[in-house]
Structures are given as C-alpha cells and as structure tokens.
C-alpha cells in the first residue's frame, strides 16, 4: 500500500496527539487521581499506536504500545500515578516527538528506545524503574529530597538542638477516613514540633489521593521513640517508622540532587490555565467536528469573494439607476448575505493562540528543571484568536522571551526567599484583544532589569556614548536591549538583566506588522508587551488622493492629518518645511516623489499627512483625504519586488487597485 500520500496527515495528526498527551500529562501531574485524564491520554496514545502501525513505523508503534499498557494499568488501579511514572511517561513522549520530527524530515522514525521501553515494562509490572531504583539506593534511606531552602532549615535547626526525622507512616488497610487520620497525625506532630515536608503533598493527603502510606519530615526536640509513641496513639495507624535525617543525606551528590529536584519540580511547575481547562474537556467531545483546510484554498476563497463584493457594488449601482423595487430588494438581501459570508471567511482563518501556548508549560517545566528554579506559568486568554499566518510565526519569539524570563528574570529559590519573595517565581503569559490588535504579554516577578548594567553594556558595545547614556529615560534605556549590537555571547553571564538576541525577536515581530515594548521595575519584575495585528492581511489605512490616483497610508505610521496654509510653509536649505507643534518637519510633495501626472496647483490650503518613522517625521503633501478604511493587503507579486516607497497594494470597493505607501522608505 502506498503510504506517502498519507504522510502529511500522519505527521500533522501525530503532532496533535503528542501535544494533547503532553498537555494531559501535565494536568495529570497536578491531579494524579483524575482517571478521566488518564483515559484521555490513553485514547490519544491508542490512536497514535494505530496510525503508526498502519504507516509502518514499528518503533513508534511499539513504544506507544508499552505506554498504553502502563496507562491501562493506571486505569485499572493496578499502579498509582507517581512522579516516577510521569518521568518515564515524559521520557517516552520525548522519544515519540523526536521520532515524529525525524519522520517529518524524511527519516524512518527509528530510534533506540530500549531503556524507556524497559522502564515502561517495569512500571507495568508494578516495579520501580531501574534508573529511579538506582537513585533511591544512592540516597540510603532518605525518603525525601530536600531543596536548598529546606536543607538550610534542617541544618540550622539541628544546630539549635532540634532533631530532624523522617516518619514513614502506614495506615491500616481498612482505614475509612484516611484524611482524618492524616489530620490527627499532623495535630500530634504540631504539638511537639514542625512538619517541613510531606510526601505526597499536603493537598493530596487532604483529598485522600494516596494509598495507605505517607511520609513526613519533621523537626522536633522530642526523641524518636517518643514521636513514634505519640503517633501510634492515633487509631487505625498500622506502623510508624522514624529515621533520623543525617547530615550527609543533606549533602547528597549534586547529580542525584538534580535528579531529585526534577522529581520535585514536577509537582511545583504547573500551569494553571484555568480558563482552558474546562474547554479541554469540551474540546475532547467535539474533536470530530473540524476539518483541515489548506490555507491556499482559503486564500482563493477570499480572492473570489472579493470579486463578488466588487460585483455586488456594481449591482447596487445598477439597481439604483434602474429603480426597480424588486431588483433593489434582491440586491439588498444579497448584500447582507455576502456581508455575513465575508465575516465567516475572515474568521475561518483565525485560530486560538492556545495552539502556540500549549507547548509552553512543558517547556517551562524542562527549563526550570535545568536551571534549578521554581517557576509557575500562568496562562491567561489562550482562547484569543489570531490569524493563522501570525500564529505560525509568533512561536519562536515567544519561546525566546519565555526563556529569557526564566533565565534572567526569575531568581534562584534561595535568592527569592532571601528577598522575602515566594520561592516559586511566576510567569504570566497573557493574550487579549484590543481594537484591531492582539496583545501578548509576558510578565515575570523576577529580578527586573538593572538599568546601570544595561547602560554600561550598551556603552561597552558602542551602541551609545557615555554622554548619551546620562540623559536616557528608563524606557529608552530598556529599549537598548533590543539594539542589534547588544546581544553578545557573554551577556548571559555578565548581566543579571536581559539581552540575548532580543533584536532578533524585535525584528520578527516587526516583520509581522507588530511592535514590542518592555517595562521593568528592578527587584519586582519585567513585562514584555507584544502588539500584533489581528491578521496580516487586513490593515487600517487612510486613503488619500494625489491627482487622480489613490494611495493608502497605514494608520500605524500616521501621527495626524492637517490642512496647512501655503504661507506657513517655510524653506530651509532648499527643503520646504513646516512648523508642526514646535517641531520642524520636512514637507514631502507626493506628486513630485511619485511623478504623478496632472496639474500641480493645489490652492491656498495644503492637506498634509504627518507620518513618522521612529522619532523622525515628515509631512506628506496630498491633494485630498478620502477617509479611513480597512483594507485587505495584497502583495505586488514576484515580478515587482523592489518598488520605491510602495509596500503592497489593495483592491478598493470599485475594483480598482490602490497602492500602499511605505512611509519608512520616504523618511531617511
């Protein structure tokens, strides 16, 4: 059977399933008891297995098969969801993703996954996977892993004569109110000391999301024997084991420590996309109701539709002149229907930013692990819609900014707690509509930008001079981060602020017709705001007339329009200028620049459009303003690639083509 024709669909759908498994696995980490999530993952894995087997990717199929077995065991309550299970699950996902990527690049999707398969098989049999077993052995009898902060507390308490114990408590199998017993144990301990850590986490204990066994780390002045006795007084407790936390346990090798940290952070790095959560369940139900459409076909549809709109305009005019009631009514109805149709076609290209945002929780989880930081990603407004073309492009800049926030923004947990902040840093990723734009904000509660360091770096790299640096406002100073000379390799280590390759981010966003700004308060965080057009194909313009030609000037570059008197035009160095709000602004006669045929007498009053490029301005002399309009942006095609001061074209209601002015080219 010839499969190549299905390859694209296979790759697309595999990616979707992997993304969904990823997301669900992250959710599962938050609520391990939720079997509906396991079912969801199982479904995706099952489909993936079937697809890859049909396509002949045996390795993919066998790995998903092993995954499926584990998931099935979880569903049937044979094994419990633990961080080791999730670790193996994520490792399998990494393999699967790599395989799919390889296939999409023309490879065979083969990959050595024996180790992961072994781990999965071990899990399925209810054993602890080999690698993780080894880790536990390393740490002797330590049941818990402690982060820097906790270690610090334990060491300090010991110095003050406290004992640190690890309690391993088993409830009787027939225990009915497990949470109540846990509560009673807590009560007992709090009378004699302090609980510094529980396994599983407190909220899981409270909601009875554990078997019959849990462990606590406590600080107390009581003896081990005493502690044990007190706890055993709580009824329905089967056994209590008390182990002293030894100092050498607190200095476990950095290797296994990071290994442990990883496990811990699984619990701590979570995404709390509250809005999208209920949506996901509803999505699952309606997944069969969408179809994939080639974007080119949508473009064709849009083009054809514009033709229809133009003909509609003509029809309207004809019906007006014919003054036939019946024709009038028909044309009116047609206008209304086609208006609705236009809206539908436009919204068909819109997709929720969720598609991009989805991959971030997992990325943040990994990054935080690698950097030894605690980060909580909060996503708000994932349902905000953007044009497909923008969605495809916006991912990379966002990845860059998020990395930046974790790397340079969020401090290490110790530093954070020493500053009195919550150990876990928070990054907000927000998307929302405003007018004709979509805003995406990335805000962290990290260290903020050190203005002085940015300035000295900028001076060092020759972006600004020392004299210039003295007069910069905060805003101008932060802008320097986006300067192209700013990003050098050593910035990462030198500056606690930011600045790696932000110029690339800025260029990308500007190429999408958007803009990016940064604001920061030292010590309390930084916010990057990205403004994007709703779609790349629609923009707001001011239509002007020059002689009998119509041109469109993007509203984004217009400061204002004005009508000036001829006598107000001044001359400086052979250049006509005007005084615009105290600033000398050069006058550009569009008729001359564009060599527009026709008479040049424009009377006593001259309409001008004041446009800007950065801080520079120019006043474009036109003949008249037609008005503001939303237009559909069209390219001039491959033949006319470098036309001076024209960035594209649009088709007006009457079917004529109007050119779009590129103000950036007019101002040098």
């Amino acid at each position, binding site marked *: 059977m010839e499969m190549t024709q299905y390859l694209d669909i296979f790759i697309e759908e595999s990616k979707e399933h992997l993304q969904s498994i990823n997301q669900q696995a992250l959710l599962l980490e938050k609520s391990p008891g939720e079997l509906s999530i396991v079912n969801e993952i199982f479904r995706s894995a099952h489909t993936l297995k079937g697809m890859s087997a049909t396509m002949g990717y045996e390795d993919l199929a066998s790995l998903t098969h092993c995954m499926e077995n584990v998931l099935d065991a979880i569903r049937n309550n044979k094994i419990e969801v633990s961080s080791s299970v999730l670790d193996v699950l994520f490792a399998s996902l990494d393999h699967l993703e790599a395989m799919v990527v390889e296939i999409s690049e023309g490879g065979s999707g083969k990959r050595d996954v024996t180790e992961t398969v072994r781990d999965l098989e071990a899990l399925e049999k209810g054993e602890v996977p080999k690698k993780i077993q080894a880790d536990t052995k390393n740490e002797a009898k330590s049941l818990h892993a402690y982060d820097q902060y906790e270690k610090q507390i334990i060491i300090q308490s010991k110095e003050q004569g406290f004992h640190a114990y690890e309690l391993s408590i088993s409830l009787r199998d027939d225990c009915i109110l497990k949470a109540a017993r846990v509560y009673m144990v807590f009560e007992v301990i709090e009378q004699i000391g302090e609980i510094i850590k529980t396994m599983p986490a407190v909220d899981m204990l409270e909601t009875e999301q554990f078997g019959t066994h849990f462990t606590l780390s406590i600080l107390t002045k009581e003896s081990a024997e005493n502690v044990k006795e007190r706890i055993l007084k709580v009824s329905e407790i089967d056994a209590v084991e008390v182990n002293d936390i030894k100092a050498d346990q607190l200095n476990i090798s950095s290797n296994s420590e990071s290994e442990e940290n990883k496990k811990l952070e699984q619990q701590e790095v979570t995404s709390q996309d509250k809005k999208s959560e209920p949506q996901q369940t509803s999505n699952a139900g309606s997944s069969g109701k969408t179809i994939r459409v080639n974007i080119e076909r949508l473009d064709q549809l*849009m*083009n*054809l*539709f*514009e*033709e229809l709109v*133009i003909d509609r305009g003509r029809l309207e005019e004809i019906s007006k002149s014919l003054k036939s009631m019946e024709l009038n009514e028909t044309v009116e109805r047609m206008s209304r229907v086609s208006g609705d149709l236009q809206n539908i076609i436009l919204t068909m290209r819109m997709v929720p930013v969720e598609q991009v945002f989805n991959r971030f929780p997992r990325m943040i989880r990994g990054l935080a692990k690698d950097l030894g930081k605690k980060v909580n990603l909060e996503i708000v407004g994932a349902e905000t819609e953007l044009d497909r073309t923008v969605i495809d492009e916006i991912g990379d800049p966002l990845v860059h900014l998020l990395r930046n926030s974790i790397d340079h923004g969020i401090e290490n947990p110790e530093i954070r707690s020493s500053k009195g902040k919550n150990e876990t840093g928070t990054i907000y990723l927000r998307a929302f509509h405003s007018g004709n734009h979509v805003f995406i904000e990335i805000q962290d509660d990290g260290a903020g930008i050190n203005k002085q360091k940015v300035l000295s770096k900028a001076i060092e790299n020759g972006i600004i001079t020392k004299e210039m640096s003295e007069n910069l406002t905060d805003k101008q100073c932060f802008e320097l981060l986006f300067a192209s000379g700013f990003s050098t390799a050593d910035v990462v280590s030198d500056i606690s602020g930011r600045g790696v390759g932000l110029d690339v981010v800025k260029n990308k966003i500007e190429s999408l017709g958007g803009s990016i700004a940064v604001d920061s308060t030292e010590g309390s965080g930084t916010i990057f705001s990205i403004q994007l057009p709703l779609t790349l194909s629609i923009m707001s313009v001011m239509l002007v007339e020059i002689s009998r*030609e119509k041109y469109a000037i993007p509203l984004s570059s217009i400061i204002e329009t004005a009508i000036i008197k001829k006598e107000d035009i001044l001359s400086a160095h052979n*250049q006509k200028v005007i005084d615009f709000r105290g600033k000398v602004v*050069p006058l*550009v006669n569009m008729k*001359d*620049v*564009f*060599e*527009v045929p026709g008479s040049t007498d424009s009377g006593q009053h001259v309409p001008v459009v004041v446009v800007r490029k950065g801080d520079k301005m*120019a006043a474009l002399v036109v003949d008249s303003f037609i008005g503001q309009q939303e237009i559909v942006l*069209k*390219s*001039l*095609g*491959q*033949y*006319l*690639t*470098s*036309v*001076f*001061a*024209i960035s594209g*074209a649009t*088709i007006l209601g009457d*079917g*004529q*083509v*109007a*050119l779009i002015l590129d103000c950036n*080219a*007019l*101002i*040098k």
Partner: protein
Amino acid sequence: MMNEEKVIIFQLKDEEYAVPVQHVKSIERMQPITRIPRTVSFVKGVINLRGVVTPIIDLRSRFEIEEVTHTDTTRIIIVSVGSIEAGLIVDAANDVIDLDRESIEPPPEVVGGVDAEYIHGVAKLEKRLLILLDLVKVLNPEKLDVQPTKESIH
C-alpha cells in the same frame, strides 16, 4: 503529437508572435490599470485580476516599438513563468495553433526590432512568420532597474 506544441499567437505592430499555451493563464480585455510610480516605463502598473494584483507590461514598450493608443482589439495576455505572473499588453490576440517543432528555426539577429535575446526562435507557417518569445527572458525581473529620480528627503 510529440513534435507539436500548442501556441497562442498575438499581434504586435505588423508581426505575429507566439507563446506556449502552458504559460498562458488567460486573455483579458483592456481594463483600468493602476500606475506604479518610479518603475521602468514598460511596466504600466497593476490590475485587479479576480482578486490578484497582477503587474502589466506593455510589450511594445518592452521591445522598444513605438506605443499606440489602445483599441478594441488590445488584449492583456496573462502569462505565468515560474513564480512570476504578469500581464502582457498586445495589439491583438489572434489564434491558437499546433506548431510543428521541426519548423522552428533559430532566431535571426533582429526581427521586427525585437532583440534576438528575447526570441526563442522563428517558425514559418505557410505565408506567416511566427516569432517565438522567450518568456523567461522577457519577464526577467533583473531587467527592472528602477530609475532613481529625485532622492527622497533626508
């Protein structure tokens, strides 16, 4: 059949030219053209071709034949070569014929004022002489050296 090629024949001044039919997307009547400032003179501007902005080249001007006012027979032949799509203004579009490849001869130095560079060959067809255009060369965008006139403001 192997040796035959379907071509579209059009008129320019007194000569008959031919382009392969697979390069021709459509033949349009004259319509309003939006001028594009500061491009080479043979680029007359762009038209709205069913929603696609399409550049229009005046072939007379392209081949440095004197321009004439457009008449009822004037046509725009929409051609596409590679990724480039453009319309060519011709005096009239006449015919579609099957051309025997063997009848094609290499171009003489100058045919009707058109540089041999743009000509793929000539074909004799009974009493008619067809000039086969090399569309790739005719549409070569590198020839589009935009004349910089006045500098923009500083």
